[in-house]
């Protein structure tokens, strides 16, 4: 039992497990759904422990790169990787806005047969993280469950104000 903050996302997909597994592990299919509303380019995808997945998400003339290093590959049940944000040369890089965001998120995806459907659970926890990284992730995770409703209410108010005054000063 650890007290590391954990992000958990459960989802049931209406497809047999082999098909869901294929959608996660065939880079041509993976690129079609991974990354919300961006163009995803998979530069390398070596599905084995120690192998890497080099991923670029593009929009306009900007892009965002990340490197995933597989730790466990158990077809068609389980994928484990180290998830890191990188610069365009695939070196691990902190986000300047978020210096204490965990450098490595240990990401586990499990696929469980459920009749004709598939239960997928994704978890992310900070890996070999500093106290500051753990605290940062913890605050962000806690913020998702509580308090952000009021964050949005305040934000709406402010945006109304900004619009009213023609973008501040």
């Amino acid at each position, binding site marked *: 039992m650890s007290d590391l903050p954990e992000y958990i996302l459960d989802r049931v997909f209406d497809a047999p497990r082999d098909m869901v597994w294929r959608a996660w592990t065939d880079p041509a299919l993976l690129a079609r759904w*991974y990354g*919300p509303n961006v163009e995803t380019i998979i530069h390398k995808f070596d599905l084995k422990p120690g192998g890497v997945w080099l991923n670029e998400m593009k929009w306009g003339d900007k892009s965002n790169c990340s490197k995933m290093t597989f730790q466990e590959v158990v077809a068609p049940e389980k994928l484990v990787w180290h998830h890191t944000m990188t610069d365009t040369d695939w070196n691990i890089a902190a986000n300047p806005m978020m210096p204490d965001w965990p450098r490595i998120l240990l990401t586990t995806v499990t696929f469980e047969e459920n009749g004709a459907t598939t239960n997928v659970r*994704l978890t992310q926890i900070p890996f070999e993280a500093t106290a500051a990284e753990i605290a940062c992730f913890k605050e962000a995770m806690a913020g998702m469950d509580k*308090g952000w409703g009021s964050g949005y209410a305040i*934000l709406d108010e402010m945006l109304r104000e900004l619009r009213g005054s023609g973008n501040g000063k």
Partner: protein
Amino acid sequence: MARLDISLILYNIYVMEKIGYIDTPPNLDAVFAALADPTRRAILTRLAAGQASVNEIAEPFAISQPAVSRHLKVLERAGLIERGIDEQRRPATLKAEPMALAVDWLTQFREFWGKSFDQLDDLLLTLKQSNEQEPDNE
């Protein structure tokens, strides 16, 4: 508020920097730490209704004026509020951008997988349909 997506959020930060609307992106760690406290969130809610002095802010709370001052200092360091130069009153004013970016960041993290999974749903439907009618075309 309109739906947010990762590209839009990152683009917004980029543009806001470019046009000088924000000089340097705020340190979101400090913003999160500041927002993690319910009293400080309540203070921000109060300030959303307009600027206020320390006394005015302290009034509805069961905490001392120095305690409110300490909270204001945390909020100011995070860039969430601005203090007036009037020595007596030093009215506090809400600043929208850092909070917008922090909320966007969280939204982006939360929605990254959620929205990707929606897209996976669509893909799986397509795969199933092409399986059913023999995969003879792409």
